[in-house]
């Protein structure tokens, strides 16, 4: 993008150079059409709303960082494609989060996978047993990072807003209803 465009006109120097370094920080299209942070207790409410808006669950994953675990839920829609990502921060000491199994049964395995690899406990999950790991696996979950390797939110997502939104707010409802990848592609 920017680098390519900048090449033909070689004249502008310092200003452009600063820009060059900064601009790739924001990819043209990150693959997300709506990106929000949620408080753990409001997750179920938000997911129910997504269910009513006809979204399907792509996957549940988890990122280990300084502030704790970030559980990431990706949703997409068949009829009007657009990716919604919900991010929930939970603490490292007590990694508990409500399971969305009742709303999306397909989450069962994704949640078990997170439980395997990070030790996140999903409360209300009917069958939280190891899925991919050996049930006799000893030692810490494999994807946990060393203390020293952990990064914090600002290092990993420099350009995002980290304040949780409420799923009841109008903004959330509006965003998920209008979310479509066509729109965000054209914007950028």
């Amino acid at each position, binding site marked *: 993008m920017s680098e390519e465009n900048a090449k033909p006109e070689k004249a502008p120097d310092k200003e452009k150079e600063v820009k060059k370094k900064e601009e790739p920080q924001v990819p043209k299209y*990150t693959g997300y059409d709506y990106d929000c942070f949620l408080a753990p207790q409001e997750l179920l409410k938000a997911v129910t709303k997504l269910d009513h808006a006809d979204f399907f669950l*792509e996957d549940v994953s988890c990122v280990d960082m300084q502030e704790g675990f970030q559980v990431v839920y990706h949703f997409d829609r068949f009829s009007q494609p657009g990716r919604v990502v919900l991010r929930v921060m939970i603490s490292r000491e007590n990694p508990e989060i409500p399971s969305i199994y009742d709303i999306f049964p397909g989450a069962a395995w994704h949640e078990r996978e997170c439980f395997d*690899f990070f030790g996140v406990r999903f409360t209300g999950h009917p069958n939280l*047993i190891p899925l991919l790991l050996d049930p006799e696996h000893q030692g810490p979950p494999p994807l946990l990072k060393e203390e020293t390797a952990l990064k914090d939110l600002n290092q990993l997502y420099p350009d995002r807003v980290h304040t949780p939104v409420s799923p009841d707010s109008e903004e959330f409802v509006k965003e998920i209803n209008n979310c479509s990848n066509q729109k965000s592609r054209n914007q950028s």
Partner: protein
Amino acid sequence: MNLDLRLDTSGDFYARKFQPTKREDTLILNMGPQHPSTHGVLRIILEIDGEYILRAEPVLGYIHRMHEKMAEVMSYPQYLPNPARTDYLHGLAWNWAHVAAVERLMGLEVPERAEYIRVITCELNRITSHLLWWGAYLLDLGAFTPIMYAFDDRERIQDILQRITGSRLTYCYYRFGGVSNDIDDRFIEETRKQCSRMKPRFKMFKDLVTDNFILRKRVEEIGEIPADTCRKYGATGPVLRGSGVPYDVRRAEPYSVYDRFDFNIPSYDTCDAMGRYLVRMDEMQESIKIIEQALDTLPEGDYIMPKAPKKPKPPAGDVYFALEGARGKIGFHLVSDGDKSPYRLKLRAPGFSNLSLFSEVSEGVLIADAVSILGSLDLVIP
């Protein structure tokens, strides 16, 4: 060493978990992990009443190789060969998802010619994947010959791909910013020849197998998956399209140059194994259409960016890249901290979501039909 040789009937961890809810008059049966119809190492614990399945629980992870962890300890180029190993039948799509996720994060512009080459090779690979599925599925259902026909075409395509990519199965062809090797006239000519060779073959496949009434009895009205179940479980790809939802990432979220080609998205609303079967058969023909269009409009230019990064260090941030693999939606969630290896890489394997609906669908069906359903999901286990 444990020398207690008394018969231990309690089973392993999963069997013990499964057992307590068993009814008095039923039997628990392990299907797999080395069962020929499970294509890989998949084990399914079944509770059966006569020939009917009451409950099923897949147990997996026998050959899980922790590619996600490997990504965290390897640098970006070192991880290039890995993704193709997660789905050995459609390796190029995974390879593509990986490089494209990194490209998206870095904002690299891939030369057009490279995009076209990617489309052509990826579609060729999709055909080989579907052909193998076709042969193997019929093998599961008891027909031995079709796989020979499938392999005839598959081998020819693999020969074509081998000349360009260097491998026949676990490809490592795409590079950040392009592909590793340009295609030449011979490739184009051979591909064209293969395309025109395959067109009448589909008619033959139809005569030979699809219309065969033994097959129809085995797949029609078997394993009905309503569209809403697909949505709840996140099933994608032919499984979803076999349930009447024409959702294809190539159209829904057009990546690369797919928006320039004219192709249909086959979908059947019968929701049964036949629907999924027909979707795949049609998809191969659509792939050929795409390949021919791409060959016709192949632009000149570089096959890799002139300044392609050898050792990329994407900026901090995260991206999601999804593309349509032969089995469904492949997703790469890449979180970078600006270092030479990813901070976290999450792979979304389509087969994972597709398989998770098996326990719901298989309730109350015959064991033989369960095999048919499993095959129609087109699983690649690792």
